[in-house]
């Protein structure tokens, strides 16, 4: 009996760690989730090889995330270093029941990004214009092809979903998430009423949620 999980062709929904997944993704996604939880367990035991493996999977995503917000290679590098150093220190506090590893990493990264944005005290932040995803192909570090494909798939899904949003809705969501703007700051930046900002965020995020859900169903 093969140890590698095989995709199940029939459609359907299953709850795994609180996530609703279609059967076609279930087998590989479950393996990825369990593998990453095991990586955290090993990191908690101070196994540097495990941290290196997690770094290989997520460093570029985290760096790109930081760079989009900070627009500085040096600052973005420091964010990545801080996040993985924090992972090293706090891996034993990670609770797989509360979030995926990627979510945990992104939350730590965003927290660091916002700290740096505040520290830099940018009085005039650049409004992120609606843009389509670029097609940059970068050499990936040595990552298992299956994990790489799954991360790519997640990236593709959300990128496509975001691209389908009307640009005004996408813009306010990006200003809030990547720049840490408050509702009032967004309203001021874009010369909109507070109500309009709230409405665009609500409509945009719900559309994103539904778009992602429909992609998983296919």
């Amino acid at each position, binding site marked *: 009996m093969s140890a590698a999980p095989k995709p199940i062709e029939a459609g359907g929904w299953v709850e795994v760690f*609180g*996530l609703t997944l279609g059967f076609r993704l279930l087998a590989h996604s479950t393996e990825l989730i369990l593998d990453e939880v095991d990586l955290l367990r090993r990191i908690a035991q*101070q196994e*540097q090889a495990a*941290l*290196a493996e997690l*770094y*290989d999977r997520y*460093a*570029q*995503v*985290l760096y*790109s*995330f930081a*760079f*989009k917000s900070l627009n500085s290679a040096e600052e*973005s*590098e420091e964010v990545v*270093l801080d996040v*993985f*150093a924090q992972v*090293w220190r*706090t891996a*034993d*506090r990670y*609770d797989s*029941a509360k979030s*995926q590893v*990627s*979510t945990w990493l*992104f*939350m730590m*990264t*965003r*927290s660091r990004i916002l700290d740096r944005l505040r520290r830099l005290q940018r009085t005039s932040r650049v409004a992120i214009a609606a*843009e389509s*995803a*670029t097609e940059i192909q*970068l050499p990936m*570090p040595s990552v298992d092809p299956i994990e790489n494909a799954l*991360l790519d798939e*997640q*990236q593709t*899904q*959300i*990128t496509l979903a*975001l691209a389908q949003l009307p640009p005004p809705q996408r813009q306010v*969501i*990006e200003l809030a*998430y*990547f720049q840490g703007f*408050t*509702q009032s700051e967004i309203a001021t930046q874009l010369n909109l009423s507070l109500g309009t900002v*709230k409405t665009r*965020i*609500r409509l945009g*995020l*719900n559309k*994103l949620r539904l778009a992602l*859900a429909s992609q998983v169903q296919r």
Partner: protein
Amino acid sequence: MNNDDRCFCELAPLYALDLLDADDRAWVEAQILAAPDLAEELAALEATVHKLPFTAPPQAIAPTLKDRLLQRLDSVNAAPVATSPSVSQPEPLSPFRSLESRGVPRQRASRRVSAWVCFGVGGAIAAIACIALGLENYRLRQTNQAIAARLQTLQQAGNQIYALQGTEKRPNAVGSLVINPQQREAVILVQNLPPLRPDQAYRLWAMPNGAAKPIYCGQFNPPADQITSQWTLPNARCYGAVAQMLITADSANAPPVPAGPLVMQSQS
């Protein structure tokens, strides 16, 4: 805006993007406690938000960054850290063991300086600063020893002990909660939970197994220099078959219904 004007469907996306003020956040969290289906809806929105980093255009990362990370870890590992053996320690002590290994002593250790070095490099001012640091280190060591001793006395048969961890609102908060059913007493030891205003308090809630709503179990608001709080439990349902203990930041005079943000919770 009063409660009647608020709509969960409008506030939930804003909550997921961390755009709400404390009052609206507390309102959303109260709705979630009352209705699990709303919690699912919010979780779906938050899961969507947590995927946004994937949309950042890929950037080339310096190949030397990984080596810098490993060097940083090596320099951290080389520094002496006060840790306890993990095998023989009972699980409920782990927050404070974690604290000792990663929190107060480590931070203070980086500032621990030999008095001889201080005098050597110069000056009465540096020497006074070093003496002050030394006194602070001594005080913190005494505090941690007192905490450990207090925990040991509380580890009696029949006592229920919960390891507490801060939520996103207070990510650095750690603590232990000890419930003595015989004495109907709660003792809580917390670190990195800042004092609230005099009209506010941290409130303890118990979620009994199968319960739909949390049970009020008392409140506390220790000053900055006090780590432990103790009080008589107001409800027998605060001990026994409890699924989870929760701590919110609330108005001290409000009715016993959770309204403020969740700041700590027990680890399952």
